[in-house]
């Protein structure tokens, strides 16, 4: 790989400050690709990927690199193959230079739940880079890589992207193969992109998407879905879209319930609402039509989301039993035990962190005999209701019904990047604050976060949610915004990857 002169020192200086990587190499091999496996790549996309370094969240497999998932239990695990998404990027000439920090198994909103390190925000080192893809977001925001892969189960790409002032795409569920991802909540999570510009975000998504026989939930884009790249010869067709806005009055019913049980954690701070309002005004000035909309049932979204996520986590993480994964490599060898249960118990006791244990406990509880109807089944019904409510506005995934709006504009997180002081936002408050992000996961819809403005030296992100497989529409709208209001960069940022 040919790196620009001075880049390695630049990257090392940033990394010493922000702790974005669990593993980092500047010798990722010679320039490659595109190879035959990369399929038909749009020429514009190839230009933004080929020969550029990238980073991969450490719960996505990259052959010959460790895959810790931010957990002591997998500290020494090296996957014998690459995930579909990383293999596709490498085939297109992308070069993985490192694995990025995350909350253990993706469970958290700050990377504070990583067993190894806490990632700092390049805009202000006393603040969180967000999570769980905090390492990927910080690495892109600092200019160490132009883009990175992440995963999003309830906001884990969009929230750190918003905290760090970059673009973050959570694709439609099924648009991108999950083969090679460490499963946390299989029905909610998807791999996605964090990037320095909308153009690059679109390019990377165009490469990683597509049906994969190794992931039964992946599928091809419906024929009626809008194209990923604008068809018009003169470029972007993003102008003149109809955008629904989840404004303060529309959110009030959801916040009223949340405020009782979650200490106002989901109520947006004034700066975030100002950022949303500014985005609204600017989008209107760019020729889009903005209308207020309501989504019924939002008040139940976060409880339903955590019920389902924890239930799936309890099931998925059962594989970490010290035999199949997390064997006796960590913590010394177990010399002799009375039975196999000791191996399982000891591995999980010492290998898993408190937040992961809490979520496994919750998941095991809601799936217990006698409780399923009250929790898990009810959550799945609420999920179906929320999906239907979003489809009423955005149209269905099969493109049979007319849509009322092309996209929905909403906040990403109720606060800007919080300080790393534990009192800043308690673990419970961080969960309740997932209100704005978890809806896209419950409904399986794409959502794109991008920086709307900077308030008090900290970026404010907003997100656009779209119809299933309409990522192209979201990119088109965000690109009209970015063209007029280029994304901000933190002090000390240098652009190496234009």
């Amino acid at each position, binding site marked *: 790989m040919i790196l620009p002169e001075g880049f390695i020192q630049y990257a090392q200086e940033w990394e010493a400050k922000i702790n974005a990587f669990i593993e980092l190499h500047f010798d990722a091999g010679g320039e490659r690709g595109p190879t035959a496996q990369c399929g038909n790549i749009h020429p514009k996309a190839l230009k933004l990927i080929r020969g550029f370094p990238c980073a991969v969240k450490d719960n996505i497999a990259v052959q010959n690199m460790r895959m810790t998932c931010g957990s002591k239990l997998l500290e020494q695990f090296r996957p014998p193959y690459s995930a579909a998404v990383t293999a596709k990027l490498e085939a297109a000439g992308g070069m993985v230079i490192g694995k990025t920090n995350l909350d253990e198994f993706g469970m958290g909103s700050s990377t504070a739940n990583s067993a190894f390190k806490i990632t700092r925000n390049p805009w202000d080192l006393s603040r969180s880079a967000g999570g769980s893809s905090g390492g990927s977001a910080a690495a892109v925001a600092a200019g160490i890589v132009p883009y990175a892969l992440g995963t999003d189960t309830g906001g884990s790409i969009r929230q750190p992207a918003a905290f760090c002032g970059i673009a973050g795409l959570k694709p439609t569920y099924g648009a991108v193969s999950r083969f090679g991802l460490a499963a946390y909540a299989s029905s909610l999570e998807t791999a996605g992109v964090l990037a320095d510009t909308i153009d690059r975000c679109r390019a990377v998504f165009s490469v990683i998407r597509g049906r994969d026989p190794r992931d*039964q939930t992946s599928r091809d884009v419906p024929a009626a879905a809008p194209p990923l790249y604008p068809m018009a010869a003169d470029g972007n067709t993003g102008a003149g879209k109809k955008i629904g806005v989840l404004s303060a009055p529309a959110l009030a019913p959801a916040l009223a319930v949340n405020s009782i049980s979650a200490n106002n954690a989901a109520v947006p701070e004034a700066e975030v609402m100002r950022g949303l309002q500014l985005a609204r005004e600017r989008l209107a000035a760019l020729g889009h039509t903005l209308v207020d909309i309501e989504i019924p049932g939002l008040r*139940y979204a976060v409880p339903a989301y955590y019920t389902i996520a924890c239930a799936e986590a309890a099931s998925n993480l059962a594989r970490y039993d010290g035999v199949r994964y997390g064997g*006796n490599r960590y913590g010394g060898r*177990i010399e002799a035990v009375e039975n196999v249960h000791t191996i399982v118990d000891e591995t999980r006791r010492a290998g898993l962190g408190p937040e992961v244990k809490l979520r*496994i*406990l919750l998941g095991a509880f809601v799936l217990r005999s006698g409780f399923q109807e009250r929790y898990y089944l*009810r959550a799945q019904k609420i999920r179906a209701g929320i999906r239907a409510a979003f489809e009423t506005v955005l149209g269905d995934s099969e493109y049979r019904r007319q849509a009322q709006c092309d996209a929905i504009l909403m906040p990403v997180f109720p606060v800007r990047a919080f300080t790393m002081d534990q009192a800043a936002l308690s673990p419970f408050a961080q*969960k309740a604050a997932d209100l704005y992000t978890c809806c896209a996961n419950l409904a399986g819809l794409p959502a794109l976060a991008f920086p709307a403005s900077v308030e008090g030296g900290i970026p404010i992100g907003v997100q656009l949610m779209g119809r299933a497989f309409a990522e192209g529409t979201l990119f088109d709208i965000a690109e009209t915004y970015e063209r007029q209001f280029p994304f901000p960069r933190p002090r000390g940022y240098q652009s190496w990857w234009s």
Partner: protein
Amino acid sequence: MDLTELRETARLARLSMDEDELRMALPAFEQMLSFFAVMREADVFGILPDGETAETRSSLRAGCFRTDTVSAPTEQDTAETFLAQAGERADRFITVPNVLPESV
């Protein structure tokens, strides 16, 4: 919710947690359960749980998820790659701890 219930849940989840750990986890656990309780107010009458759409049911009835085929790995013998993951090994065998004390 009390410690006995939590202890039993931990056992079912294969989490070996001592009394101190359980006691520390209890408040966060109870807080989340009371958060979940909000779902009781939701009117879900007549709604099918998500994932049980007519489409998935008919696909299951048809007896196939999909007709894709996965080609077998051809590039290399993957056995060695997988064996390399073993904590301890003897040749092509993975060694595991004795499950019985030697005195038995």
